[in-house]
């Protein structure tokens, strides 16, 4: 089956920043993304877990965008503005996608 080249961008960011990030993505014309819940982790600020948490301050999410290569820079710029001062990891991977008409 025919596949098409694209990029998979994964932005791991604090849950409280999610809305700001997706708003920024939408302003930049990126309307396709999926969100995964991150249940724990560790970084320079030490380990954490979402178990038993009620504070909105804790917790992170992964925002995943599949995007055409030519639109990558727009996305990265939009994301960077939000992620910049905040905790956040941004990774980009080459992927093949089925049904490129969807992007």
């Amino acid at each position, binding site marked *: 089956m025919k596949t098409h080249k694209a990029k998979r961008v994964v932005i791991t960011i*604090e849950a*409280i*920043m999610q809305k*700001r990030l997706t708003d920024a993505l939408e302003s930049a014309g990126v309307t396709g993304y999926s969100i995964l819940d991150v249940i724990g982790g560790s970084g320079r*600020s*030490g*380990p954490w*877990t*979402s*178990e*038993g*948490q*009620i*504070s*909105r*301050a*804790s917790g992170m999410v992964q925002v995943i965008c599949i995007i055409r290569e030519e639109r990558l820079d727009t996305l990265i710029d939009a994301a960077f503005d939000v992620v910049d*001062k*905040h*905790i956040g990891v941004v990774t980009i991977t080459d992927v093949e996608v089925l049904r490129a008409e969807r992007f």
Partner: protein
Amino acid sequence: MADILSLAADNLLSPVILSFILGVAAALGRSDLSVPEAAAKGMSIYLLFAIGFKGGASVADHGVDGTLIATIGAGLVLSAGLPLVAFNLLRIMTKMSRVDAAAVAGHYGSISIVTFVAATSVLQGRGISSEGYMVAVAAVMEAPAILSALWLISTGGSDRRMDGTLLREILLNGSIVLLVGAFFIGLATGQDGLASISSFIVAPFTGVLCLFLLDMGLVAGRGLRDVRGSLGYGAVAFGIMMPVIGSLAGLAAALLIGLSTGGSVLLMVLSASASYIAVPAAMRVALPEANPSIYLTLSLGITFPFNLTVGIPLYVTLAQLATGG
């Protein structure tokens, strides 16, 4: 003094406090006991709804006396003012950066609704009644402290920390909306409304509070374990001194206004307690460079347990002495 101790012992020996201690002990002992996030959030929704509703129904029943406006005003002033006290104390007692100190200060001006709930359940256990609108006072005290903390920082530099989105997030955060909304539902439906749902929001309340505090104990204990040693002695001392200072400011305001003994205790508790829901979230957005483990550990690991175990009985005794109640 003997009184305070026996009160404190009484308080410690309640299922509610022992559940919290069990949680802390389990976390320090590295047990894998944990409450699912959804269950913990579910319980917090229940507690906010129940406490708000009961406050509203009580106001519907007893009416509002002239002290309502004054108490709301006092709450606003305390919430906005206590961060300044806290900030200066932190700069003296610890080596925290300005940003960290401002972030911590914001937490101590704001309130911990669970400490408030625990205090109402202690008052109820002792048969001390209080003004129903104290729930509304709790709600108005959440936000001003955040503005004070950001103002403390902005005096140092020039960058704008506050924008419309953040302000809306602070004022319409879920716990305020639920608390205030339930208050108005209770106010609108009164004792009839309360009767129709009292076997849900009154009867099982203390039991749910036990399980919720078990979870809070687990989270607090985990925090203590992970950062043991990251707080200096100065910070720990602050975490115990500041609530006492706050409670005295609250008591002074309560006496000026002429609140009942129960109402005075609750205003003391609100002033003494430190936020760990609304303020941390706002600080992560507005002051991302502040270290969350400092403010979360101080608020949830030091001040919350202090208030729960020693603070509340102390404030009850002080209020009884001062108001003659």
